[in-house]
Protein backbone atom coordinates (compact mmCIF):
# COMPACT_ATOMS: atom_id res chain seq x y z
CA UNK A 1 0.00 0.00 0.00
CA UNK A 2 1.48 3.32 -0.98
CA UNK A 3 0.81 6.69 0.57
CA UNK A 4 -1.63 8.90 -1.29
CA UNK A 5 -0.46 12.47 -1.58
CA UNK A 6 -2.96 15.16 -0.85
CA UNK A 7 -4.32 16.72 -4.02
CA UNK A 8 -2.84 20.22 -3.70
CA UNK A 9 0.73 18.87 -3.17
CA UNK A 10 0.48 16.53 -6.15
CA UNK A 11 -0.83 19.26 -8.43
CA UNK A 12 1.99 21.59 -7.37
CA UNK A 13 4.63 18.93 -8.12
CA UNK A 14 3.17 18.29 -11.59
CA UNK A 15 3.22 22.00 -12.28
CA UNK A 16 6.92 22.12 -11.34
CA UNK A 17 7.69 19.24 -13.66
CA UNK A 18 5.92 20.99 -16.51
CA UNK A 19 7.78 24.20 -15.89
CA UNK A 20 11.17 22.43 -15.99
CA UNK A 21 10.19 20.74 -19.24
CA UNK A 22 9.27 24.12 -20.67
CA UNK A 23 12.62 25.60 -19.70
CA UNK A 24 14.49 22.68 -21.26
CA UNK A 25 12.60 23.09 -24.53
CA UNK A 26 13.35 26.82 -24.57
CA UNK A 27 17.08 26.20 -24.10
CA UNK A 28 17.15 23.64 -26.90
CA UNK A 29 15.57 26.06 -29.29
CA UNK A 30 17.99 28.86 -28.41
CA UNK A 31 20.96 26.55 -29.06
CA UNK A 32 19.49 25.51 -32.39
CA UNK A 33 18.85 29.11 -33.40
CA UNK A 34 22.41 30.17 -32.50
CA UNK A 35 23.79 27.26 -34.47
CA UNK A 36 21.81 28.27 -37.56
CA UNK A 37 22.96 31.90 -37.28
CA UNK A 38 26.61 30.82 -37.04
CA UNK A 39 26.23 28.46 -39.99
CA UNK A 40 24.54 31.16 -42.05
CA UNK A 41 27.27 33.70 -41.34
CA UNK A 42 29.97 31.18 -42.18
CA UNK A 43 28.37 30.21 -45.51
CA UNK A 44 27.87 33.85 -46.31
CA UNK A 45 31.53 34.67 -45.74
CA UNK A 46 32.73 31.70 -47.74
CA UNK A 47 30.50 32.12 -50.77
CA UNK A 48 30.52 35.89 -51.16
CA UNK A 49 32.88 36.69 -54.08
CA UNK A 50 34.15 39.95 -52.55
CA UNK A 51 33.54 42.11 -49.51
CA UNK A 52 32.62 45.01 -51.84
CA UNK A 53 29.35 43.50 -53.00
CA UNK A 54 27.71 41.77 -50.19
CA UNK A 55 24.19 43.03 -50.93
CA UNK A 56 22.70 39.84 -52.27
CA UNK A 57 24.44 37.94 -49.51
CA UNK A 58 22.94 40.20 -46.86
CA UNK A 59 19.51 39.94 -48.40
CA UNK A 60 19.79 36.17 -48.43
CA UNK A 61 20.82 36.15 -44.77
CA UNK A 62 17.97 38.46 -43.88
CA UNK A 63 15.54 36.14 -45.58
CA UNK A 64 16.94 33.22 -43.61
CA UNK A 65 16.65 35.18 -40.36
CA UNK A 66 13.04 36.19 -41.00
CA UNK A 67 12.26 32.64 -41.98
CA UNK A 68 13.72 31.39 -38.72
CA UNK A 69 11.68 33.87 -36.67
CA UNK A 70 8.55 32.82 -38.46
CA UNK A 71 9.30 29.18 -37.73
CA UNK A 72 10.31 29.50 -34.07
CA UNK A 73 8.49 32.74 -33.04
CA UNK A 74 5.05 31.25 -32.34
CA UNK A 75 6.59 28.39 -30.34
CA UNK A 76 8.57 30.88 -28.18
CA UNK A 77 5.56 33.11 -27.56
CA UNK A 78 3.33 30.22 -26.59
CA UNK A 79 5.98 28.96 -24.22
CA UNK A 80 6.22 32.19 -22.19
CA UNK A 81 2.43 32.48 -22.20
CA UNK A 82 2.04 28.96 -20.85
CA UNK A 83 4.64 29.61 -18.16
CA UNK A 84 2.68 32.63 -16.92
CA UNK A 85 -0.52 30.60 -16.74
CA UNK A 86 1.27 27.81 -14.83
CA UNK A 87 2.48 30.31 -12.24
CA UNK A 88 -0.98 31.73 -11.71
CA UNK A 89 -2.45 28.27 -11.25
CA UNK A 90 0.19 27.45 -8.70
CA UNK A 91 -0.46 30.60 -6.66
CA UNK A 92 -4.19 29.92 -6.68
CA UNK A 93 -3.65 26.34 -5.58
CA UNK A 94 -1.42 27.44 -2.73
CA UNK A 95 -4.03 29.89 -1.53
CA UNK A 96 -6.72 27.24 -1.62
CA UNK A 97 -4.49 24.95 0.40
CA UNK A 98 -4.07 27.69 3.01
CA UNK A 99 -7.82 28.20 3.30
CA UNK A 100 -8.37 24.47 3.65
CA UNK A 101 -5.69 24.24 6.35
CA UNK A 102 -7.20 27.06 8.38
CA UNK A 103 -10.70 25.66 8.14
CA UNK A 104 -9.47 22.22 9.14
CA UNK A 105 -7.49 23.57 12.05
CA UNK A 106 -9.95 25.77 13.77
CA UNK A 107 -13.45 25.56 12.39
CA UNK A 108 -13.79 21.79 12.03
CA UNK A 109 -12.25 21.26 15.45
CA UNK A 110 -14.64 23.73 17.03
CA UNK A 111 -17.57 22.01 15.35
CA UNK A 112 -16.36 18.66 16.72
CA UNK A 113 -16.08 20.16 20.22
CA UNK A 114 -19.56 21.58 19.92
CA UNK A 115 -20.99 18.20 19.01
CA UNK A 116 -19.22 16.60 21.95
CA UNK A 117 -20.48 19.23 24.39
CA UNK A 118 -23.92 19.57 22.88
CA UNK A 119 -25.74 19.22 26.21
CA UNK A 120 -23.87 22.13 27.81
CA UNK A 121 -25.56 25.19 26.33
CA UNK A 122 -23.18 27.76 27.77
CA UNK A 123 -20.10 25.86 26.64
CA UNK A 124 -21.54 25.57 23.13
CA UNK A 125 -22.28 29.28 23.11
CA UNK A 126 -18.75 30.15 24.21
CA UNK A 127 -17.17 27.87 21.60
CA UNK A 128 -19.37 29.26 18.84
CA UNK A 129 -18.71 32.86 19.81
CA UNK A 130 -14.94 32.52 19.95
CA UNK A 131 -14.81 30.67 16.63
CA UNK A 132 -17.11 33.23 15.06
CA UNK A 133 -14.91 36.07 16.22
CA UNK A 134 -11.76 34.38 14.94
CA UNK A 135 -13.25 33.52 11.55
CA UNK A 136 -14.71 36.98 11.18
CA UNK A 137 -11.33 38.58 11.87
CA UNK A 138 -9.70 36.21 9.38
CA UNK A 139 -12.29 36.80 6.64
CA UNK A 140 -12.72 40.54 7.01
CA UNK A 141 -9.01 41.04 7.53
CA UNK A 142 -8.58 42.64 10.91
CA UNK A 143 -4.82 43.11 11.17
CA UNK A 144 -3.11 41.29 14.03
CA UNK A 145 -1.78 43.94 16.39
CA UNK A 146 0.52 43.43 19.32
CA UNK A 147 -1.21 43.94 22.65
CA UNK A 148 1.61 46.21 23.64
CA UNK A 149 0.86 48.65 20.87
CA UNK A 150 -2.87 49.22 20.63
CA UNK A 151 -5.37 49.82 23.43
CA UNK A 152 -8.25 48.36 21.46
CA UNK A 153 -6.28 45.17 20.79
CA UNK A 154 -5.28 44.90 24.47
CA UNK A 155 -8.92 45.26 25.47
CA UNK A 156 -9.97 42.59 22.99
CA UNK A 157 -7.44 40.17 24.40
CA UNK A 158 -8.79 40.77 27.88
CA UNK A 159 -12.42 40.30 26.84
CA UNK A 160 -11.57 37.10 24.96
CA UNK A 161 -9.87 35.77 28.07
CA UNK A 162 -12.85 36.57 30.30
CA UNK A 163 -15.27 35.01 27.83
CA UNK A 164 -13.24 31.84 27.78
CA UNK A 165 -12.66 31.59 31.53
CA UNK A 166 -16.18 32.37 32.72
CA UNK A 167 -18.42 31.26 29.86
CA UNK A 168 -20.03 34.68 29.54
CA UNK A 169 -20.61 36.74 26.41
CA UNK A 170 -18.79 40.08 26.39
CA UNK A 171 -20.19 42.60 23.90
CA UNK A 172 -17.45 45.07 23.05
CA UNK A 173 -17.86 48.44 21.36
CA UNK A 174 -14.75 50.51 20.68
CA UNK A 175 -14.67 54.13 19.56
CA UNK A 176 -11.18 55.29 18.64
CA UNK A 177 -7.82 53.78 19.48
CA UNK A 178 -4.38 54.80 20.76
CA UNK A 179 -1.08 53.27 21.90
CA UNK A 180 -0.93 51.99 25.48
CA UNK A 181 1.08 53.57 28.28
CA UNK A 182 1.36 52.77 31.99
CA UNK A 183 -1.87 54.50 32.91
CA UNK A 184 -3.76 52.77 30.12
CA UNK A 185 -2.36 49.38 31.10
CA UNK A 186 -3.79 50.01 34.56
CA UNK A 187 -7.08 50.88 32.88
CA UNK A 188 -7.08 47.58 30.97
CA UNK A 189 -6.28 45.64 34.14
CA UNK A 190 -9.09 47.38 36.02
CA UNK A 191 -11.43 46.60 33.12
CA UNK A 192 -10.45 42.96 33.40
CA UNK A 193 -11.28 42.94 37.10
CA UNK A 194 -14.59 44.65 36.52
CA UNK A 195 -15.48 42.11 33.83
CA UNK A 196 -14.44 39.21 36.06
CA UNK A 197 -16.57 40.59 38.92
CA UNK A 198 -19.57 40.90 36.65
CA UNK A 199 -19.04 37.37 35.35
CA UNK A 200 -18.61 35.90 38.84
CA UNK A 201 -21.20 37.77 40.93
CA UNK A 202 -23.91 39.33 38.80
CA UNK A 203 -25.51 36.17 37.51
CA UNK A 204 -25.78 37.74 34.07
CA UNK A 205 -24.82 35.70 31.01
CA UNK A 206 -23.70 38.74 29.05
CA UNK A 207 -21.64 41.81 29.93
CA UNK A 208 -21.03 44.87 27.78
CA UNK A 209 -17.76 46.79 27.54
CA UNK A 210 -17.56 50.21 25.89
CA UNK A 211 -14.26 51.94 25.14
CA UNK A 212 -14.03 55.56 24.04
CA UNK A 213 -10.76 57.27 23.21
CA UNK A 214 -10.92 61.07 23.30
CA UNK A 215 -8.06 63.55 22.82
CA UNK A 216 -7.72 64.23 26.55
CA UNK A 217 -8.91 61.00 28.20
CA UNK A 218 -9.90 57.37 27.72
CA UNK A 219 -13.13 56.00 29.19
CA UNK A 220 -14.33 52.45 29.69
CA UNK A 221 -17.82 51.42 30.82
CA UNK A 222 -18.39 47.84 31.98
CA UNK A 223 -22.06 47.06 32.38
CA UNK A 224 -24.19 44.07 33.28
CA UNK A 225 -27.93 43.66 33.78
CA UNK A 226 -27.49 41.18 36.61
CA UNK A 227 -28.45 41.16 40.24
CA UNK A 228 -26.72 44.40 41.20
CA UNK A 229 -25.75 45.15 44.78
CA UNK A 230 -26.24 47.68 47.54
CA UNK A 231 -22.91 49.11 48.80
CA UNK A 232 -23.78 48.36 52.44
CA UNK A 233 -24.61 44.74 51.69
CA UNK A 234 -21.26 43.94 50.16
CA UNK A 235 -19.14 41.71 52.40
CA UNK A 236 -15.64 43.04 53.27
CA UNK A 237 -13.89 40.64 50.83
CA UNK A 238 -15.83 41.85 47.81
CA UNK A 239 -15.57 45.43 48.93
CA UNK A 240 -11.81 44.89 48.83
CA UNK A 241 -12.08 43.86 45.18
CA UNK A 242 -13.98 47.02 44.31
CA UNK A 243 -11.42 49.05 46.27
CA UNK A 244 -8.63 47.51 44.23
CA UNK A 245 -10.25 48.78 41.04
CA UNK A 246 -10.76 52.24 42.50
CA UNK A 247 -7.35 52.22 44.17
CA UNK A 248 -5.48 51.15 41.05
CA UNK A 249 -7.13 53.81 38.92
CA UNK A 250 -6.38 56.46 41.56
CA UNK A 251 -2.71 55.54 41.79
CA UNK A 252 -2.26 56.18 38.05
CA UNK A 253 -4.10 59.47 38.03
CA UNK A 254 -7.45 58.18 36.82
CA UNK A 255 -10.74 57.49 38.53
CA UNK A 256 -13.31 54.71 38.88
CA UNK A 257 -17.00 55.02 39.75
CA UNK A 258 -19.15 51.98 40.50
CA UNK A 259 -22.92 52.38 40.23
CA UNK A 260 -25.30 49.59 41.05
CA UNK A 261 -28.98 49.04 41.72
CA UNK A 262 -30.37 45.93 43.31
CA UNK A 263 -32.12 43.85 40.68
CA UNK A 264 -31.14 46.20 37.86
CA UNK A 265 -27.46 45.63 37.33
CA UNK A 266 -24.09 47.29 37.77
CA UNK A 267 -22.03 49.75 35.79
CA UNK A 268 -18.35 50.47 36.34
CA UNK A 269 -17.01 53.67 34.84
CA UNK A 270 -13.22 53.93 34.42
CA UNK A 271 -11.56 57.15 33.27
CA UNK A 272 -7.85 57.66 32.57
CA UNK A 273 -6.48 61.01 31.38
CA UNK A 274 -3.97 61.00 28.52
Amino acid sequence: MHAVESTPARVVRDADRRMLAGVAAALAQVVLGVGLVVAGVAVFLVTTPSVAAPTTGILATAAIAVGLVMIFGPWWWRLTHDLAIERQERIRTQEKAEVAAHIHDSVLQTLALIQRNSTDARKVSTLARSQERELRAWLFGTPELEAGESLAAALERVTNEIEYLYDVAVETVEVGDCPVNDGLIALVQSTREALANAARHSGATSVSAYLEVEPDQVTVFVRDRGSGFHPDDVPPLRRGIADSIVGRMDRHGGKAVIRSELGEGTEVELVMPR
Partner: protein
Amino acid sequence: MTGAKPRVFLVDDHHLVLSGVRAELGDSVEVIGEASEVEAAIEMIGERLPDVVLLDVHMPGGGGRAVIQAVCAKHPEVKFLALSVSDAAEDVIGVIRAGARGYVTKTISGPELVEAVLRVADGDAVFSPRLAGFVLDAFAADFRGPVDPELDQLTVREKEVLRHLARGYSYKEIARQLSISIKTVETHASAVLRKLQLTNRHQLSRWASDRRLV
Protein backbone atom coordinates in the same frame (compact mmCIF):
# COMPACT_ATOMS: atom_id res chain seq x y z
CA MET B 1 -48.57 52.99 16.64
CA THR B 2 -51.37 52.11 14.25
CA GLY B 3 -52.30 48.99 16.22
CA ALA B 4 -52.23 46.68 13.24
CA LYS B 5 -49.46 44.11 13.00
CA PRO B 6 -46.71 45.33 10.68
CA ARG B 7 -46.43 43.44 7.38
CA VAL B 8 -42.87 42.14 7.05
CA PHE B 9 -40.93 40.75 4.09
CA LEU B 10 -37.73 38.70 4.58
CA VAL B 11 -34.70 38.62 2.28
CA ASP B 12 -31.68 36.35 2.85
CA ASP B 13 -29.78 33.92 0.66
CA HIS B 14 -29.54 31.32 3.44
CA HIS B 15 -32.72 29.30 3.87
CA LEU B 16 -31.84 28.31 7.42
CA VAL B 17 -31.70 31.97 8.37
CA LEU B 18 -35.06 32.70 6.76
CA SER B 19 -36.82 29.98 8.73
CA GLY B 20 -34.99 30.94 11.92
CA VAL B 21 -36.01 34.58 11.63
CA ARG B 22 -39.59 33.60 10.83
CA ALA B 23 -39.70 31.55 14.02
CA GLU B 24 -38.17 34.36 16.12
CA LEU B 25 -40.66 36.94 14.85
CA GLY B 26 -43.57 34.71 15.75
CA ASP B 27 -46.97 36.33 16.06
CA SER B 28 -45.88 39.90 16.67
CA VAL B 29 -45.68 40.61 12.96
CA GLU B 30 -47.29 39.31 9.79
CA VAL B 31 -44.67 37.78 7.49
CA ILE B 32 -46.06 38.28 4.00
CA GLY B 33 -43.28 36.69 2.00
CA GLU B 34 -39.63 35.88 1.60
CA ALA B 35 -36.99 35.87 -1.14
CA SER B 36 -33.44 34.56 -1.39
CA GLU B 37 -32.27 36.46 -4.46
CA VAL B 38 -31.90 40.16 -5.24
CA GLU B 39 -34.00 40.20 -8.42
CA ALA B 40 -36.83 38.15 -6.95
CA ALA B 41 -36.80 40.32 -3.82
CA ILE B 42 -37.09 43.57 -5.78
CA GLU B 43 -40.00 42.19 -7.80
CA MET B 44 -41.95 40.72 -4.90
CA ILE B 45 -41.46 43.76 -2.65
CA GLY B 46 -42.70 45.99 -5.46
CA GLU B 47 -45.82 43.85 -5.76
CA ARG B 48 -46.70 43.25 -2.11
CA LEU B 49 -45.49 46.56 -0.58
CA PRO B 50 -44.67 45.43 2.98
CA ASP B 51 -44.27 47.88 5.87
CA VAL B 52 -40.80 46.61 6.80
CA VAL B 53 -38.23 44.58 4.87
CA LEU B 54 -35.71 42.59 6.91
CA LEU B 55 -32.76 41.98 4.66
CA ASP B 56 -29.28 40.56 4.65
CA VAL B 57 -26.41 42.76 3.51
CA HIS B 58 -24.34 40.11 1.76
CA MET B 59 -26.03 38.42 -1.17
CA PRO B 60 -24.85 37.71 -4.70
CA GLY B 61 -26.04 40.16 -7.33
CA GLY B 62 -25.43 43.41 -5.48
CA GLY B 63 -26.48 42.47 -1.94
CA GLY B 64 -28.92 44.30 0.30
CA ARG B 65 -27.85 47.66 -1.11
CA ALA B 66 -29.10 46.75 -4.57
CA VAL B 67 -32.52 45.83 -3.20
CA ILE B 68 -32.79 49.03 -1.16
CA GLN B 69 -31.73 51.26 -4.04
CA ALA B 70 -34.11 49.63 -6.52
CA VAL B 71 -37.14 49.67 -4.19
CA CYS B 72 -36.53 53.15 -2.70
CA ALA B 73 -36.54 54.65 -6.18
CA LYS B 74 -40.17 53.63 -6.78
CA HIS B 75 -41.57 52.99 -3.29
CA PRO B 76 -39.88 55.24 -0.72
CA GLU B 77 -42.47 54.37 1.90
CA VAL B 78 -41.10 50.83 2.35
CA LYS B 79 -38.75 50.74 5.34
CA PHE B 80 -35.63 48.59 5.50
CA LEU B 81 -33.93 46.99 8.49
CA ALA B 82 -30.58 45.39 7.70
CA LEU B 83 -29.81 42.07 9.39
CA SER B 84 -26.37 40.62 8.91
CA VAL B 85 -23.57 38.45 10.16
CA SER B 86 -21.07 41.08 9.14
CA ASP B 87 -20.61 44.15 11.27
CA ALA B 88 -17.70 45.38 9.21
CA ALA B 89 -17.89 49.17 9.15
CA GLU B 90 -17.99 49.48 5.36
CA ASP B 91 -21.04 47.24 5.14
CA VAL B 92 -22.93 48.92 7.96
CA ILE B 93 -22.44 52.50 6.80
CA GLY B 94 -22.96 51.55 3.15
CA VAL B 95 -26.35 50.00 3.77
CA ILE B 96 -27.52 52.89 5.97
CA ARG B 97 -26.51 55.43 3.37
CA ALA B 98 -28.40 53.43 0.76
CA GLY B 99 -31.54 54.01 2.83
CA ALA B 100 -31.85 51.43 5.61
CA ARG B 101 -33.32 52.73 8.90
CA GLY B 102 -31.30 50.45 11.08
CA TYR B 103 -28.85 47.62 11.38
CA VAL B 104 -28.82 44.62 13.71
CA THR B 105 -26.47 41.65 13.79
CA LYS B 106 -27.74 38.08 13.44
CA THR B 107 -26.80 37.21 17.01
CA ILE B 108 -29.60 39.46 18.25
CA SER B 109 -32.20 37.82 20.52
CA GLY B 110 -35.76 37.15 19.35
CA PRO B 111 -37.51 39.77 21.51
CA GLU B 112 -34.93 42.43 20.59
CA LEU B 113 -35.41 41.63 16.89
CA VAL B 114 -39.17 42.05 17.22
CA GLU B 115 -38.67 45.36 19.02
CA ALA B 116 -36.33 46.54 16.26
CA VAL B 117 -38.86 45.63 13.55
CA LEU B 118 -41.69 47.39 15.39
CA ARG B 119 -39.52 50.47 15.90
CA VAL B 120 -38.63 50.67 12.20
CA ALA B 121 -42.30 50.13 11.27
CA ASP B 122 -43.10 53.18 13.41
CA GLY B 123 -40.65 55.25 11.37
CA ASP B 124 -37.88 55.36 13.98
CA ALA B 125 -34.21 54.39 13.76
CA VAL B 126 -32.55 51.30 15.18
CA PHE B 127 -28.94 51.38 16.27
CA SER B 128 -27.06 48.32 17.40
CA PRO B 129 -24.44 49.21 20.05
CA ARG B 130 -21.74 48.71 17.48
CA LEU B 131 -23.42 50.95 14.91
CA ALA B 132 -23.76 53.65 17.57
CA GLY B 133 -20.03 53.31 18.24
CA PHE B 134 -19.27 53.61 14.51
CA VAL B 135 -21.31 56.79 14.21
CA LEU B 136 -19.56 58.40 17.18
CA ASP B 137 -16.21 57.53 15.67
CA ALA B 138 -17.14 58.73 12.18
CA PHE B 139 -18.44 62.10 13.33
CA ALA B 140 -15.51 62.66 15.65
CA ALA B 141 -13.02 62.38 12.79
CA ASP B 142 -11.48 65.49 11.29
CA PHE B 143 -13.46 66.79 8.39
CA ARG B 144 -11.94 68.94 5.70
CA GLY B 145 -14.34 70.85 3.47
CA PRO B 146 -17.43 73.01 3.94
CA VAL B 147 -19.14 71.95 7.16
CA ASP B 148 -22.93 71.98 7.24
CA PRO B 149 -23.81 71.97 10.96
CA GLU B 150 -27.20 70.51 10.10
CA LEU B 151 -25.71 67.40 8.55
CA ASP B 152 -22.04 67.05 9.40
CA GLN B 153 -22.03 67.47 13.16
CA LEU B 154 -23.78 65.81 16.10
CA THR B 155 -25.36 67.88 18.86
CA VAL B 156 -24.31 67.32 22.47
CA ARG B 157 -27.60 65.58 23.24
CA GLU B 158 -27.31 63.35 20.18
CA LYS B 159 -23.80 62.32 21.23
CA GLU B 160 -25.08 61.49 24.72
CA VAL B 161 -27.85 59.30 23.33
CA LEU B 162 -25.40 57.56 20.99
CA ARG B 163 -22.92 56.98 23.80
CA HIS B 164 -25.58 55.29 25.89
CA LEU B 165 -26.72 53.20 22.94
CA ALA B 166 -23.10 52.11 22.42
CA ARG B 167 -22.90 51.15 26.09
CA GLY B 168 -25.80 48.77 25.58
CA TYR B 169 -28.62 50.85 27.08
CA SER B 170 -32.15 50.31 25.81
CA TYR B 171 -34.25 53.32 24.79
CA LYS B 172 -36.20 53.02 28.04
CA GLU B 173 -33.02 53.04 30.12
CA ILE B 174 -31.63 56.03 28.22
CA ALA B 175 -34.85 57.93 28.77
CA ARG B 176 -34.59 57.28 32.49
CA GLN B 177 -30.85 58.07 32.66
CA LEU B 178 -31.14 61.38 30.82
CA SER B 179 -34.52 62.29 32.33
CA ILE B 180 -36.24 62.64 29.00
CA SER B 181 -39.13 60.82 27.37
CA ILE B 182 -38.69 57.74 25.19
CA LYS B 183 -40.17 59.73 22.32
CA THR B 184 -37.38 62.29 22.69
CA VAL B 185 -34.78 59.53 22.60
CA GLU B 186 -36.37 58.22 19.40
CA THR B 187 -36.34 61.70 17.89
CA HIS B 188 -32.63 62.10 18.59
CA ALA B 189 -31.89 58.65 17.13
CA SER B 190 -33.86 59.45 13.97
CA ALA B 191 -32.02 62.77 13.61
CA VAL B 192 -28.69 60.97 13.85
CA LEU B 193 -29.81 58.46 11.23
CA ARG B 194 -30.72 61.26 8.86
CA LYS B 195 -27.32 62.90 9.34
CA LEU B 196 -25.60 59.60 8.74
CA GLN B 197 -27.51 59.15 5.49
CA LEU B 198 -26.99 62.67 4.15
CA THR B 199 -23.70 63.91 5.57
CA ASN B 200 -21.06 65.16 3.18
CA ARG B 201 -18.32 63.47 5.11
CA HIS B 202 -16.86 61.68 2.10
CA GLN B 203 -14.42 59.74 4.19
CA LEU B 204 -17.36 57.97 5.83
CA SER B 205 -16.67 54.92 3.73
CA ARG B 206 -12.92 55.10 4.26
CA TRP B 207 -12.82 56.09 7.90
CA ALA B 208 -13.08 52.51 9.08
CA SER B 209 -9.86 51.47 7.39
CA ASP B 210 -8.14 54.65 8.59
CA ARG B 211 -9.21 53.85 12.14
CA ARG B 212 -7.26 50.61 12.09
CA LEU B 213 -4.02 52.57 11.75
CA VAL B 214 -2.91 53.31 15.30
